[in-house]
């Protein structure tokens, strides 16, 4: 055997981990530096037996986020869940898939309920117990938006995680304010002269969160676990209102193959449609750079909700419009600029 310390030194010098930079685990780095998901001791806050669809991005995102938060807090964590798919597929009587204290109240009040939980912990002198609220995009960007904004502006000690699958999937795929233009939903059918969701609608709740000036806002996707976990852990290291929006593809609602869930989340970032960034106290501080730029069509094509864009030779005009949106993101969030050197 070679001198183990020599190896360790070489490893330290060499930050290149071919098989560990993007994968879940990496046998070459110490346990403490590996992702939470790689750990045999991860909490599996969301465990087996839940009733999510095959390849559910939300189930994945929720476990990623909660396990990371569980590690960050040493298991001193309470989750509040808005009504929605995540709630329904995890807690149908008589079984729950949660292995952490968890509360579901209503569709639109998760942020406020979480404020109450955090207040209770504060007043009970259990400051080590932290609170997370979570919900889908409907429960966050639409019906829960008032409570969310209130929680933000009071700077309550809550991390709100929105699992963004771009529509009301639980109720049968209706449009939400997070549904992208042209996407087919049950309420924006692929019919008429401009099939699918219309351009010029929707909102960026991460941006709105940034406008609240809260300590921490981030977006993430299930395709980049390390980034996601880092953000959740970072968020748990901060007190006050925090917001993370995680892009979670939905095979059912998007009309995609169950095995494409992660690929689509990846393509959404790589084409610029879903910018992944971080902001602190009202200022965008970093963005995750695009590694392998792709045109939006590559992201859209595997999804049946966009199938009408590719029919009969393709709707080049509206595809161009979508590409323009992605291009704007690329400019706005500097997605193709080289990574700033860490200081």
């Amino acid at each position, binding site marked *: 055997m070679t001198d183990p310390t020599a*190896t360790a030194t070489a490893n330290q010098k060499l930050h290149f981990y*071919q098989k560990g930079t993007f*994968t*879940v685990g*990496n046998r070459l780095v110490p346990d403490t530096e590996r992702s939470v*998901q*790689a750990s045999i001791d991860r909490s599996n806050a969301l465990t*087996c037996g839940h009733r999510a669809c095959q390849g559910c991005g939300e189930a994945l995102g929720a476990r990623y986020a909660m396990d990371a938060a569980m590690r960050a807090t040493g298991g001193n964590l309470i989750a509040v869940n808005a009504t929605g798919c995540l709630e329904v597929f995890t807690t149908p009587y*008589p079984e729950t898939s949660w292995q*952490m204290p968890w509360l579901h109240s209503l569709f639109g009040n998760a942020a406020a309920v979480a404020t109450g939980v955090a207040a209770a912990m504060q007043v009970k002198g259990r400051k080590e117990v932290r609170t997370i609220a979570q919900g889908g995009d409907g429960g966050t960007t639409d019906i829960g938006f008032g409570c969310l904004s209130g929680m933000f502006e009071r700077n309550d000690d809550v991390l709100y995680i929105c699992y963004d699958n771009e529509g009301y999937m639980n109720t049968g795929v209706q449009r939400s304010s997070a549904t992208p233009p042209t996407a087919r939903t049950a309420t924006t059918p692929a019919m008429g002269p401009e099939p699918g969701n219309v351009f010029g609608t929707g909102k960026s709740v991460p941006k709105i969160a940034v406008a609240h000036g809260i300590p921490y806002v981030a977006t993430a996707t299930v395709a980049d676990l390390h980034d996601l976990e880092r953000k959740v852990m970072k968020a748990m290291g901060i007190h006050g209102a925090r917001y993370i929006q995680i892009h979670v593809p939905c095979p059912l609602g998007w009309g995609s193959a169950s095995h494409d869930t992660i690929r689509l989340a990846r393509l959404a970032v790589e084409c610029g449609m879903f910018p992944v960034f971080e902001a602190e106290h009202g200022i965008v501080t970093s963005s995750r750079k695009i590694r392998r730029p792709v045109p939006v069509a590559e992201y859209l094509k595997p999804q049946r909700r966009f199938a009408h864009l590719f029919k009969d030779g393709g709707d080049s005009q509206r595809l161009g419009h979508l590409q323009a949106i992605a291009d704007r993101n690329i400019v706005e969030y500097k997605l193709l600029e080289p990574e700033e050197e860490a200081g």
Partner: protein
Amino acid sequence: MKHPFAITLDSGSSLANLTGSWRTDRPVYVDRLPPCNHACPAGENIQAWLYHAESGDYESAWRALTQDNPMPAVMGRVCYQPCETACNRAKVDDAVGINSVERFLGDEAIKRGWRLTPPKAETGKRILVVGAGPSGLSAAYHLRRLGHTVVIYEAGPVAGGMMRFGIPKYRLPRDVLDAEIQHILDLGVELKVNSKVENIRDTMKAGGFDAAFLAVGAHIAKRANIPAGAAAKILDAVQVLRSMEGQEKPLFGRRVVVYGGGNTALDVARTAKRMGATEAIIVYRRTRERMPAHDFEVEEALEEGVMMRWLSTIKRMDEGVLTVEKMVLDDKGFPQPTGEFETLEADSLVLALGQDVDLSLLDGVPGLELKGGVAQVDTNMMTGYAGIFAGGDMVPSERTVTVGIGHGKKAARHIDAWLRGAVYAPPEKHELADFDKLNVWYYADASKTVRPTLDMARRKSTFEEVQKGLDESNALYEARRCLSCGNCFECDNCYGVCPDNAVIKLGPGNRFQFNYDYCKGCWLCEAECPCGAIKMVPETI
């Protein structure tokens, strides 16, 4: 009731809901054959030793490597790297620098004095190996490791065969070669030099050998019928390169023409440059693209000032001048004469047109088949005469050190089986890990490490090794570029990406197991496995 009825539920109680019943396709873990391993004539388990090298455990890597090839320091210099040609990484950025890591490991072993693993027990069987070239040495090594007594008869004064007499020092320093030969001899292999076997059966009988492995190489230069004037100086490449190892160096004159398009031609031309020739010109009848020599060697030769004359044949030689005919390629790519002639000044002409085998030791062996100047062997490497096996350049094959080393290993396994009255059955080969089975997103961007080379002035005037090795950090880097095609490297992706937590992690070295109670068969693990180590199979319903 512990909690309020129905609205409050006990933690994790959904474990009672076995969602595995939803599944129509089930994932299974598989091992697929990495293309590098598949392409390696020496049968190296490249990925396996890279795996150890990645973690900086070079001795384990070297030990894994020497399971198949006892001479990594040599191979790391002279192998033409079919592994790298096959490497899936080439489709991402550049092939993994397998060869350079191999050399690093070999050099590291020499530097640190690692010893090859001796046999556990002696079988009492005696095997005769004829020829101490790559095949012979490899066979001797493998046979010795299997516990047999091995004696090598080498016709020449020193072991190494073509590695010594065919490959110039600037490509393979002799101390490296000597060290690795010594590793093998240190296992207790007996080497008899200057011992040409005239008749194999006699030698076997005399030495009480139970079997023999013949690997005498191809040392007889092929001649071309070139009309020549009396004063024309015509040499052959084998002779030239061999004499480089002796006291009397060959005399080329100022202008040397080498005739041929193989690696040997390049070796001679480059040697001539180093010996002081002002001009070294390679004359070849076809184009550069069709040269059998390896491109990197052509490149290096050109860098060193070797000149090339394509589409030319030599018609005759007179004192100081050659007559050359221009050729054109026909539709099928064959060169055809044009009738246009030119002259070329040359003090000497070296013919590098290939080599033949001296098969005289096989005279009178019954059942033996010789065809095309080489000995025919069956799939077990055995000649038509039971107990006599053959390999290397003397059997039909590509004539490279790597192939030779592979032959040695293969023959050793068959000899061992034959001695036990059995037939060696190689393990079934796994399905090939094609590029399309990989998910290369997960591999970090990293282009190949460029090995440092000697400066040009010294390259042209000395026989110092042209290509330098890697240091530890870039060897590690290079090892880590391996994609581990087809074989789980415990990246935890399946464990992480399963939305149903249906993958059980068994801990370091033990890989994973699917929990079919909960696996819904979504294919995500298969899609996101970087190295193609998961396969979906339909459930039987």
